[in-house]
């Protein structure tokens, strides 16, 4: 469709004219005119809602909201076209079969072996070995090898050595969806562990001997401690309500030596609404400070983030400081439990704060333990009530920690944002389906590629320049400030206003330091070369030994690579009054923020949702002239503008 206008949310005056293309996998908007044509690519699987608004004189507006928090406003000249697009997108954004998803057609041009290697990058058996299990207290159980006991659990489950298959099966019958207590994290230093499960089917008075034995075995697997914390991450009221349905929580009287604790994290429905409210605030057009803060508070989002963090901190403290094992559960043990276990692991173990370790952590606590990615993130058309930003909240917890501990994480904010992006993109097979069982049945590993391999390949982009493996902040347990420091929890504009570049700091400290570090490395190499040459030269002169060696001049021009990191920078609409004043300024057209707000590639020249596009665009000839090379360094899209406004960080 031609002559489509793409509206800029921040400034109503700005709209770009271009052509809209629909492909099997993407919506593509190509700007008319300008030489380096700007393109906006949106994966169908990222679309969370499409809204057709009332037709105006200029055309028919179409609002597309994406799961990665991008919002696109289009105005399509013909009502008919708009309706067609609307209908097509509704269908395309709601696939009904896994095979329709992008990962089954996505081909990053890797051969079979590379693909297999990619899937092997994260290996959970190795990970449990790293933690120190199996050992005298813990063993691997094959009771679930055919998913016979619990179909949402992995085949390999770690349980206390003293526990028999009989106990496991017995306990699983007493737990929601048969998710029996299993090991999530083991602390080598003091034998304390974090186990996870679903709620017990205790109702008002039911007991289960095997379940009680199971908990006792977990406690005894930590000989240094004489009790076990059982943490129910739900608000007490919710847990009590569950008792009426024959579920509920552990009765301290029935289990020997447990300490029971509620930590009130709200359920997925509350979280979904909370995010919705916060996004409404983010979408406000020129909100006042009060609108924004009031809306943020009203959404309750940061309160929920804090609740998850507090639960994680409680568990980390129990394990690290008290040396007490913890059993964590919520209702089904796949949402809040996953959040809390992974936050606690991240606090406890520096390994999870590395690039590789973080992948392992997500694989362990989320993917393998049956977090329902398909339902939560709406990959296939399904019940909208199942959708909830559960892992988004976990990623935000990590970001909040990164803000408090700037040197403790090997990765940077971009890493988190790209993981969030790909959880929804369905470009890689990692997060498909709801359980390991389903993924195996679909033969995901044979038919799709692994995100971890892709991120690992581009890991230079995701490094935190302030991280040093030997730094004191890096090592040991992180002890974040508990309350009363509510002010430590901040709004994450890098995520929720990710596509509004105009709102973010115009110069990135991370990128700058990365460039400096890169240059430093080059300097180190050059220093070595120079020293060598100097030594040779001195030796040859000493011997008066003239060899006509054609020394290549290897001294290279060193420049901070930030120089091409031109930053968009133009004034916002500071006043409405200016508009009405007839201006003779030729620069009027450039008034608005010319940051390319909607393209997805600003952040990540190496991200394949762009590069992959070149394989996808067979039907769109016009685009081939500028097919982004896979993994190559695209110049920052911000650069094509009035040089006066671009802020260059020339070396």
């Amino acid at each position: 469709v031609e002559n489509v206008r793409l509206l800029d949310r921040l400034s109503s005056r700005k709209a770009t004219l271009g052509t809209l293309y629909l492909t099997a996998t993407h919506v593509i908007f190509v700007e008319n005119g300008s030489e380096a044509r700007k393109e906006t690519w949106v994966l169908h699987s990222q679309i969370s809602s499409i809204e057709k608004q009332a037709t105006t004189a200029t055309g028919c507006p179409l609002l597309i909201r994406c799961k990665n928090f991008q919002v696109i406003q289009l105005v399509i000249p013909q009502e008919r076209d708009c309706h067609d697009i609307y209908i097509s997108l509704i269908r395309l954004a709601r696939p009904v079969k896994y095979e329709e998803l992008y990962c089954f057609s996505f081909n990053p041009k890797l051969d079979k072996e590379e693909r297999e290697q990619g899937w092997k990058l994260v290996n959970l058996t190795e990970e449990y070995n790293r933690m120190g299990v199996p050992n005298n207290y813990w063993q691997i159980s094959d009771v679930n090898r055919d998913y016979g006991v619990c179909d949402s659990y992995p085949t390999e489950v770690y349980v206390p050595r003293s526990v028999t298959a009989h106990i496991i099966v017995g306990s699983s019958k007493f737990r929601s969806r048969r998710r029996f207590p299993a090991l999530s994290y083991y602390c080598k230093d003091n034998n304390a562990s974090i186990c996870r499960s679903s709620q017990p089917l205790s109702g008002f008075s039911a007991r289960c001997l095997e379940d009680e034995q199971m908990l006792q075995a977990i406690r005894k697997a930590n000989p240094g401690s004489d009790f076990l914390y059982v943490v129910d991450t739900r608000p007490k009221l919710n847990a009590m309500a569950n008792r009426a349905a024959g579920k509920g929580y552990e009765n301290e009287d029935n289990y020997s030596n447990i300490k029971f604790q509620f930590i009130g994290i709200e359920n997925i429905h509350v979280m979904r609404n909370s995010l919705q409210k916060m996004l409404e605030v983010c979408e406000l057009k020129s909100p006042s400070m009060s609108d924004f803060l009031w809306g943020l508070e009203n959404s309750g989002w940061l309160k929920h983030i804090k609740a998850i963090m507090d639960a994680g901190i409680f568990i980390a403290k129990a394990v690290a400081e008290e040396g007490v094992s913890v059993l964590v559960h919520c209702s089904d043990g796949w949402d809040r439990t996953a959040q809390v276990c992974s936050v606690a692991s991240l606090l406890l173990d520096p390994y999870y704060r590395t690039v590789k370790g973080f992948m392992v952590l997500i694989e362990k606590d989320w993917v393998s333990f049956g977090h329902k990615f398909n339902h939560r993130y709406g990959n296939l058309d399904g019940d909208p009530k199942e959708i909830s930003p559960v892992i988004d909240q976990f990623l935000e917890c990590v970001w909040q920690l990164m803000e408090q501990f700037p040197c403790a994480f090997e990765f940077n904010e971009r890493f988190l944002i790209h993981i969030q992006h790909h959880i929804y993109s369905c470009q890689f097979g990692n997060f498909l389906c709801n359980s390991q069982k389903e993924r195996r049945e679909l033969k995901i590993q044979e038919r799709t590629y692994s995100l971890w391999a892709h991120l690992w390949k581009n890991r230079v982009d995701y490094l935190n320049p302030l991280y040093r493996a030997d730094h004191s902040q890096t090592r040991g347990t992180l002890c974040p400030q508990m309350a009363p420091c509510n002010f430590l929890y901040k709004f994450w504009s890098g995520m929720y206003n990710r596509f509004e570049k105009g709102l973010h700091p115009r110069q990135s400290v991370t990128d700058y330091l990365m460039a400096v570090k890169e240059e430093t490395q080059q300097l180190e190499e050059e220093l070595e070369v120079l020293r060598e040459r100097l030594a040779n030269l001195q030796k040859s002169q000493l011997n008066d030994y003239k060899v006509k060696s054609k020394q290549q001049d290897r001294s290279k021009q060193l420049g901070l690579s930030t120089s091409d990191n031109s930053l968009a920078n133009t004034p916002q609409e500071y006043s409405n009054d200016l508009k009405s004043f007839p201006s003779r300024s030729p620069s009027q057209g450039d008034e608005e923020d010319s940051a390319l707000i909607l393209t997805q590639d600003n952040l990540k020249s190496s991200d394949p949702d762009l590069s992959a596009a070149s394989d996808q665009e067979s039907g769109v000839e016009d685009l081939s002239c500028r097919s982004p090379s896979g993994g190559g360094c695209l110049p920052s899209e911000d650069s094509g503008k009035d040089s006066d406004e671009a802020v260059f960080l020339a070396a």
Partner: protein
Amino acid sequence: MEFAELIKTPRADNVALHRPFYPAVEGTLCLTGHHLIFSSRRQDNAEELWLLHSNIDSIEKRFVGSLGTIIIKCKDLRIIQLDIPGMEECLNIASSIEALSTLDSVTLMYPFFYRPMFEVVEDGWRSFLPDQEFELLSSATDEWRLSCINKEFSVCPSYPPVVIVPKSIDDEALRKVAMFRHGSRFPVLSYYHKKNGMVMMRSSQPLTGTNGKRCKEDEKLINATLRPGKRGYIIDTRSLNVAQQARAKGGGFEQEVHYPQWRRIHKCIERFNILQESLIKLVEACNDQSHNMDRWLSKLEASNWLTHIKEILTAACLAAQCIDREGASVLVHGTEGTDSTLQVTSLAQIILDPRCRTIRGFESLVVREWLQAGHPFQQRCAQSAYSNSKQKWEAPVFLLFLDCVWQILRQFPCSFEFNEQFLIMLFEHAYASQFGTFLGNNESERSKLKLPQKTMSLWSWVNRSEELCKFQNPLFEANSLVIWPSVAPQSLQLWEGVFLRWNRPSKFLDEAQEEMISIIKYNKELQAKVNALRRQLAELETDDRMQENL
């Protein structure tokens, strides 16, 4: 007056000092004329706390049995608690501190007694003189002149002795204009934009009154700054409503009919007690120990502090936009032209002029646009967030300005030569200092107090390499462009370095800062080494070649 008269108990032993995030320390408390000194007796970890009495904003006392407790709240927002055994000692000390921290005579202030322990390399009182500024200007344009009309502060008591005005306007006309402007603050040059020759002027409101008085000279003066055929903007920092109400008190604003070449824009920036209350509420929220997330956000919102930041920044961006983008000259004023006006003119310069983003340039900006321009520091900074005096003239105008600068610095972390610490240092010294720089309300008062002769300038101390290195931004890369900050709520943050400074642990953030510095330092060292080797190599190679040629 002898300070000794005020000090009934000069010393108390076994005093316990409590601060957030530190374990309590026991030691000895001493009072001197200007300081409260606490020193721990522990041999292994001797610690001393020196607190200027003038830094103390308010004190509270409490008794439990014979143990007295004094809670001291400082203007730099820190709160400390001293447990003093003995009721009498405690009462004496509290009353001494109260008296010493509220001395009413400026000449009793510490700067008049302070003797520097460092060598003065450059006298800060002479570092930023109007003549130098004018010299810079004259290299770009000859349309302006330096007028000594205010030599004896006879025309305008809050202006410096010399001001920059359009060349075509003589002193006689200036006198008439002064009569037409509030507090005689006639329009003067604030900033000249070299890129396009546009200017920013500032003044106070015109005294039009209810009957729409006009002043031909005033019109001529401000029109003299316009290029033929061009128009200009008047940015009034009050809402239209407030400006209209001002007419009843003899003030007012420029009527379109009399200033046809100018377009007036009203940008409301709050003043006086509204700002002071905002600060008090904000600091209260930051010190709230409750565990509730919702309360924190609603308190932050209710303080309106960030709203003020947004308003001020927006007005400053607008002024900068008019100059740089619209190619128009700008006149900024509010009522007196000593508060919101200066916030706008100085911030606009930071946006427009790369020089103002250097340490030296920023100091010069503070001197020009705040000290010489007659911002009444002594009145405004008499008390801070723990004030209970509720005096109308107290207001954190300068702190808001510094906060706005920090917001821009946060958005352009590589474009400033100075760091956050530099801004925090200025905040501290504006409220309590051993230096005379921020004493007095204007140049006239400073000259009467003979501050340059009797006190040390802050700049003499700061501009030594030992101090400067603490305030340098390791990420600085000179950026010659205009920097446009975002004023969206998502882009503005609470200035933690000031408001949460004493109630958040900063260890991890400090470590990050150190890491950053060491990364850059190592890079520079390597660069130097490589360059040296390259030179050496080049020399050897030429030798080599010469030998070859022989």
